[in-house]
Structures are given as C-alpha cells and as structure tokens.
C-alpha cells in the first residue's frame, strides 16, 4: 500500500487556496440525496454536522452521551489559538504554523498544519458571530493570553471554560440544523462497526444504549469525530466515557492507525490521591502564565511551602529554560517534573508532586490594582487581597475545582501538581482531505493524527476540531462526493450489513457469555498500570517488550474471566465499558509496538536510550522522519507503512527552549 497524502502542488501558502479554487463541488439537489453519518458531536463532529446540514446534505449524527452538548470537548479549559495578531506582538500565520511544527517536534505534515494556521482566524470570527462570549478587555475588544511553546499572546479564552463555550456555540448551530430538519440526532447511541463494501465505507452499525437494540444506518460517507484514546491509561484527564472503539473498529476494517504511541502527558494535573481514583483533573496550562513551578532545593524538606524561603526553592523550569521559563511545551515540562520527583525532590504525601505557586502573581497584580485604585502605600495584606481578586477573575473556576478536590486553598498555598495523560496525537491516518485509507471514511478532530506531530501545543486542539469541522471537511468531502452522484445509495438491506451486524452481535454475546469473576473496571485499571509504567512518560526497549507480553496475557484473561451483569437488551453500562476495554487492550498492544519500533525520542515519545547529555529528547531524523501507519493483519500482527515527512518550509532543528 502506498500512502497517498494528496498534498496539493504549489507553495505552502497557496496550497489551500488553490485546492479550494479547484476542488469539485456537489450541487444542492444532489447534496439532498446524500446521507452523511457523523460519529461524535464534540467540536469536530458538531461543527461538521451543523455545516454539512447547512450545506444541504442529509446528516445523521451520533453520540453516546444523553445530549450532543456533553461531548468531551466541553471540558477544555484554557483556550483556543488563532493567528489574529490583535496584540500586535509579532504573530502571523507563518509563526503559528512554525510554532506548531516545532512544538510537535517535526513529526507532523506541513501542508495540514499550514492550512490549520490559515483558517484559525476564521474560527474566532465564526464563534463570535454565534455568540460565544470570549473574554474581553475594558475596551470591549477580545482578550488574549499566552500558552506554552510560544512567545506571543494568541490564545482566546472564556475564563477556564473555553471548550464549554465553543462547544455550546457549535451545539447551538447543530440544534438549529436539527430544528430545520437537516440533521437527525441520535443520542445514547454507540457506533460499533463501520460497514465497508468493496473498500468503501457505506454505513455503520450502532447499539441503542437505552434498550440494546442493534441498528443499521447507510450513508454516502462516514465521518469519525470520536475523540482521543487517552483513557487507554485508565487514569487520564479525559471524560470517563471517552474511548477508542469507533476508531478501533474502523482500524479493524482497514483504516491505518498512525503514530499510536504519541501520547501527551500534561504537566499540570492534580496528583493521584488513592487506589480508588477514577480520573485525574487537569489544571489548565493557562495557569503557567501566572504560576511558577518549584520544588524545595533540599531533599525531604517537610516544611510548609510558605515557610521555605525564596533562596531554598528551585524554580527549575526558569533555571533550565530561561527563554521560555514556565511556558516551555508540555512534554518538556512534564519530563522535568518527573525528573525532580525521581530524584526525591517531590512534595506532598506521595512525593509525586511539584508546586505551582501563584504568590508572585498575587503580589504583582495586587500592586497594579492598588495603583489603579489610587491606594498609596498599601499593606502587604491589602496587596494580596487585591491580587487574589484578579486571579479569581482569571482562573476562578479552576481554583474552585482544585479546592473541591483537594480541600486545600490555592489562593493561600501553592497547588500541588503532577503530570497526567491528557491527549493523543496519534490517531487514524488521514490524507490532506481528512480521508482515511478506507474510501468514504473521514476522520476529524482528536481522532485523526494529522496536525500535532509528537506533541501538541496548548490551545491548538480546539482550533483543529473546529477547523476540520467548519472549514476543511465541507470542501474536501464535496471534492470526493462529486463522483458519488452517479452511484445509487446503498440500502441497509444489502447483505454486507447482515455480515457487519452479525459480527457486532457475536462480539456482544461473547462478552456476555464469559460470565467470569472480574469487572471491566478491574481489567481497565490493570491495563492502565502496564501502559503508564512501561509506555508512559519514559519508555525503553526492555519495558516495552515486557508490556507487550503482559498485555497479551491480560487480553487472554479478559476473555476468560470478565463479568458483566444483566443482559444485552437493556441499558447496561457495564456492557458498554467491557466493549470499550476490549478495544483498549488491543490498542495498548499496538501503542507499545509503535513505541518500540520508534528508536528515537521526539515530543511526548521519550525513549530513554535516545537523549541529549542534558536529558532532552533526541530525534533520529535520518531514520524516523516519517509517519508510522499500521495496518492490522491478524491478532497481535501489524504491518508498518511509512509516510515520509518532507519539510520544505521549515528547517529541521533540535528544539531549543533555552
């Protein structure tokens, strides 16, 4: 198989314009004859479904939650990037493009990333027009802040609830199309297979979660917008239901899975507190605008953080990376935190945490505020009081969340934070048109692999989801569907649907009939532990080889000892979980295989064997400047296909944030 990325000719700046100018179109009457199936209603899915509905396609959209508004995108906190350059601090489309490629440690496709940077500005215009209440300055104009890996302020935000506001915007656009009748919404439905006929996606099989009914849907195209697979680690910042099933079923049907081992471990999350822990909570990267990260210089320093004087603290990010300081990219910050804790400098009861301290920011803002309010010689208490008010305006909901979870007050003492699994850069392989290796099957948002290389910069996933859904797929889908007008739409009575449905039913019955002793969650926790210990923040050959064997054994045990109560013909959350974990186990194995094969360190993929003398990730460009796309051949067996990465516009270099 040759992976055809279908990158248009021309200079990097002209590719997308050229493409849009020349792509084929589908006229309105023909659009009305075409059904598009959209799996997922996060930023990618909701924006795609609303836009395609508006264009005149007949859209059917699916999500497993009780409402499209609850997709995991809702939880995104910090913000969304766009090259608007409103602050006039030197931003441009090229700089956003450059930062993203560099941040991704040169493992993403230039043409896709440039397109993303190009449409970023439109996203902000679009969202404001929809009534998204972004943060504003007193001038009434939009406010910006910084995120990691950049030296400009290009992040738009709505307090710590940016994802919520953007998703509500897309959700409302979607509901409007539902009201008009262009989109039909199927809540509490889980897609369990893609129906593929003669190499082309022609429909899906879904399970109605309310009553367990298996249903068939036919379509001219299938769009997977099903999110990331971070929950393979059990503990992550993802929502409990986030899963890989839709993508994995597509993979089993021939869609290649690209760079599965590229996982993002986010540096600032609330640390694990006990065995019962079900998920981890992110403290947005935006906090690194104002929070300073440190550990005590002395090992085993048990003093209260407030009692540790300045000169006995090590602000290690500021020390090691003076140019970017606390705003280094996520992979760099996470590894640095791990390193501090591994050498015994961690804080808190578990010693697996570092401090994120707002003390300096509180004083700085307090003084500013006092100055504005004409308070002369304010007391330090007054300054702090004023400073805390400013912080609560900026990050109030995050601070509240921290307080509820830990019972500690971050206005008075530093937060304790530790890295946690957050995002998956890997995903189904797609070409420039977002089409997978299965014709008619498109992949949008976090579920695809295309834009973030080996490490995603903060505030760029929301940007990608909306770019894919609002601005890319409407063109690229049309370009491909223009040929479809000659083909008669397939019916769900076609025998190919019988085969797919039967496979789905067989798998469910198999799961139900194991009747073992161990709950799905228990297996999930065990898988997560293997993945975190051996395919997490630091990887090496020995561990990865062990992990593969352990996962294979776990898979066996799962299929012999799983216990699911109740029946398949009812609302049965345990059955839902079991199906997802079965897929996670297989995906986990592939992640380890991918991590093992990539004999280099890049971005979030850190192989201990490949590091610079200072402990930074050491790429091996000559050998590994490619996308690793895996084709499933049989159980435990995959074949590797490579898409070479060509860098015409940016020179490859060792990343340097010093």
């Amino acid at each position, binding site marked *: 198989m040759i992976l055809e990325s279908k990158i248009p000719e021309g200079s990097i700046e002209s590719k997308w314009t050229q493409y849009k100018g020349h792509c084929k179109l589908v006229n309105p009457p023909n659009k009305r004859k075409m059904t598009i199936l959209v799996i997922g209603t996060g930023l990618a899915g909701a924006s795609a479904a609303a836009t395609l509905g508006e264009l005149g396609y007949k859209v059917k959209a699916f999500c497993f939650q009780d409402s499209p508004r609850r997709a995991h995108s809702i*939880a995104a906190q910090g913000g969304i990037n766009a090259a608007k350059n409103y602050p006039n601090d030197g931003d441009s489309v090229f700089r956003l493009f450059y930062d993203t490629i560099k941040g991704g440690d040169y493992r993403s496709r230039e043409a896709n990333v440039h397109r993303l940077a190009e449409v970023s500005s439109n996203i902000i215009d679009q969202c404001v027009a929809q009534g998204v209440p972004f943060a504003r300055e007193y001038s009434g104009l939009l406010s910006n802040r910084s995120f990691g890996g950049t030296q400009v302020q290009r992040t738009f935000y709505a307090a710590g609830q940016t994802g919520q506001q953007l998703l509500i915007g897309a959700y409302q656009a979607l509901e409007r199309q539902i009201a008009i009748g262009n989109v039909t919404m199927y809540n509490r439905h889980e897609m369990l297979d893609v129906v593929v006929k003669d190499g082309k996606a022609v429909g899906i099989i879904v399970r109605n979660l309310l009553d367990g009914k298996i249903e068939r849907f036919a379509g001219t195209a299938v769009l997977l917008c099903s999110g990331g697979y971070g929950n393979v680690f059990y503990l992550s910042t993802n929502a409990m239901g986030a899963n890989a099933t839709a993508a994995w079923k597509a993979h089993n049907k021939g869609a290649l899975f690209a760079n599965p081992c590229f996982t993002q471990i986010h540096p600032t999350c609330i640390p694990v507190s006990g065995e019962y822990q079900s998920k981890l909570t992110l403290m947005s990267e935006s906090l690194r605008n104002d929070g300073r990260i440190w550990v005590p210089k002395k090992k085993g320093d048990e003093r209260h953080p407030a009692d540790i004087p300045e000169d006995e603290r090590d602000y290690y990010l500021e020390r090691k990376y003076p140019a970017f300081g606390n705003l280094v990219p996520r992979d760099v910050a996470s590894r640095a935190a791990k390193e501090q804790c591994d050498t015994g400098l961690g804080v808190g009861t578990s010693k697996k945490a570092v401090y994120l301290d707002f003390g300096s920011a509180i004083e700085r803002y307090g003084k500013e505020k006092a100055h504005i309010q004409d308070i002369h010689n304010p007391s330090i208490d007054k300054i702090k009081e004023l400073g805390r008010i400013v912080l609560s305006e900026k990050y109030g909901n995050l601070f509240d969340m921290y307080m509820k979870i830990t019972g500690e007050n971050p206005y008075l003492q530093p937060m304790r934070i530790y890295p946690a699994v957050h995002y998956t850069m890997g995903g189904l392989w797609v070409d420039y048109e977002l089409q997978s290796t299965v014709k008619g099957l498109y992949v949008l948002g976090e579920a695809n692999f295309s834009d973030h290389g080996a490490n995603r910069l903060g505030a760029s996933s929301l940007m990608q989801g909306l770019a894919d859904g609002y601005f890319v797929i409407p063109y690229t889908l049309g370009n491909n569907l223009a040929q479809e007008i000659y083909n008669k739409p397939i019916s769900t009575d076609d025998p190919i649907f019988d085969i797919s449905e039967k496979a789905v039913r067989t798998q469910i019955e198999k799961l139900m009939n194991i009747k073992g002793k161990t709950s799905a969650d228990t297996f999930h926790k065990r898988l997560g532990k293997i993945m975190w210990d051996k395919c997490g923040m630091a990887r090496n050959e020995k561990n990865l080889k062990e992990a593969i064997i352990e996962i294979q054994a776990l898979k066996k045990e799962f299929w012999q000892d799983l216990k699911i109560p*109740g029946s398949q013909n*009812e609302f049965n959350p345990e059955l839902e979980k079991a199906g997802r974990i079965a897929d996670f186990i297989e995906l986990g194995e592939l992640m380890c295989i991918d991590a093992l094969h990539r004999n280099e360190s890049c971005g979030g993929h850190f192989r201990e064997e490949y590091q610079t003398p200072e402990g930074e990730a050491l790429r091996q460009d000559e050998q590994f400047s490619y996308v690793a796309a895996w084709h499933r051949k049989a159980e435990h067996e995959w074949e590797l296909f490579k898409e070479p990465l060509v860098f015409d516009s940016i020179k490859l270099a060792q990343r340097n944030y010093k």
Partner: protein
Amino acid sequence: MQHYKMNLTIQVWRQKNALEKGQFESYQVKDISSEMSFLEMFDVLNEQLLQEGKDPVAFDHDCREGICGMCSMYINGKPHGPWQANTTCQLHMRAFKDGDTIVVEPWRAQAFPVIKDLVVDRSAFDRIIQAGGYVSVGTSGNTIDANVIPIEKQKADMAFAAAMCIGCGACVAACKNSSAMLFLSAKVSHLSLLPQGQPERKIRVLNMLNKMDEEGFGACTNTNACEATCPKEISVTNIARLNLEYLNASLSKQD
C-alpha cells in the same frame, strides 16, 4: 487536611426501567476514604454489587469535572447534594462522616422520565434549545472580523455568566413546580445580552417559552429554589430579564 475512613448506609432508588415501579434499596459500604469523590464511592458500591451478583446502580456521569452536566443525583433531599455551587461528581466524601445514611434519588420531574435507577431522560432541554436557543448565523466563517463590534466588558461578562449553564437540570429537580425557567432564562440572557443575539431576540423568547410549556415543565412561582441549587450559580435575575424580554416581545407582537 485531615483524611479519614468511614462506613456508610446508602439508600438508593432502584427502578428497572421507565415502566416498572421503583423502590429504595439499602446498601452498606465500608472503608470509604474522605478523599474520594461521591461517584468514586458509587464505583466502590457498584463493584461490591457486581461481586455479590447484583445489578450495579445505573447513573449518568462523564467528565467528573463539573462541566458536562451529565451527573444528576438527588442526594439527601438536594440536587447534587449538600455543597453549594457544586455538581454530584465534584462532591467529595469529606462532606460526610462515619455512620451517615445517604439517600440518593433520580431527578424527579414529569418532563424528565426515569430511564433506569438514577438515569433520567433530559432530551426536553435539547428541544427547548431547538426552539430558538441560537443565533441563526451560517457556519461559513465569512462573517465580519471578530473585533469589529466591541462589546462592553461588563455585558460580555454577564453573558458569559449566563452561558455557563451546564444543562444539568438540577434547577428543575429542585423546583416544586418542575419549572425550567432558570435553564431557559440562562440561554435567553446569554444571547440577548450580546449584539449578535439582537435580531432574533423577540421571537426567541416566545418560541422557547412555548416549547417549555409544551414539554410539560411547570410555571415559575419565584421560590428561588433553582438558584440555591444551581451548580453554576446562575442567578434568578436572569429570570427577571427573561420576563422583561417576554413582556417586550408580547407587546410588540400586538403592534
């Protein structure tokens, strides 16, 4: 922060499906850590039930961060439990002490029929939004530049405060009339405070109110129980604004 363990009695509403009648069941859970979240305590209970060969308790949840609006338990007589401005998933066990009995029920409202145990059907909320909870702008991106219309910071902040509603339905569950006025007013306020929401301001409020009645939600009698229970502290001043919007809209309809 002092951590502790506790043993608890959990009385949960069990209901097989929408048609069958439900009843309370009582369970004991042991060694619950004060650091756990309320839903993690339910995870422990469910694992226990599973091991005893019983059906685990069905409940809705997803983000467990207080933002998706999916979790929905009526705990000791209060939607989302005893803490102020909080969701079920963000409630932590340090709110309870050893030996406590905790009573957990689903949202109860005619417009939110029970699906199973603690899971209810809140799709009526989506249909209210369909009736007009949006700006009828296309998704082409060919609008005007985002900074062409400045919006007074105070107004933008007020719109944001209203837009924070997570659509959980606690306001309905808390209200003796099962009114959805707080939910509705949050959306009407969000959009009518912004310049983008102006063109459809009147028709929106009329259509959404009609839909709310049609879906079987009750009328608002200003008890403010909704505001007291709302996890996002959506203010009842939004209801006042909604009433004003309604008045304006109905008057101009007669013109």
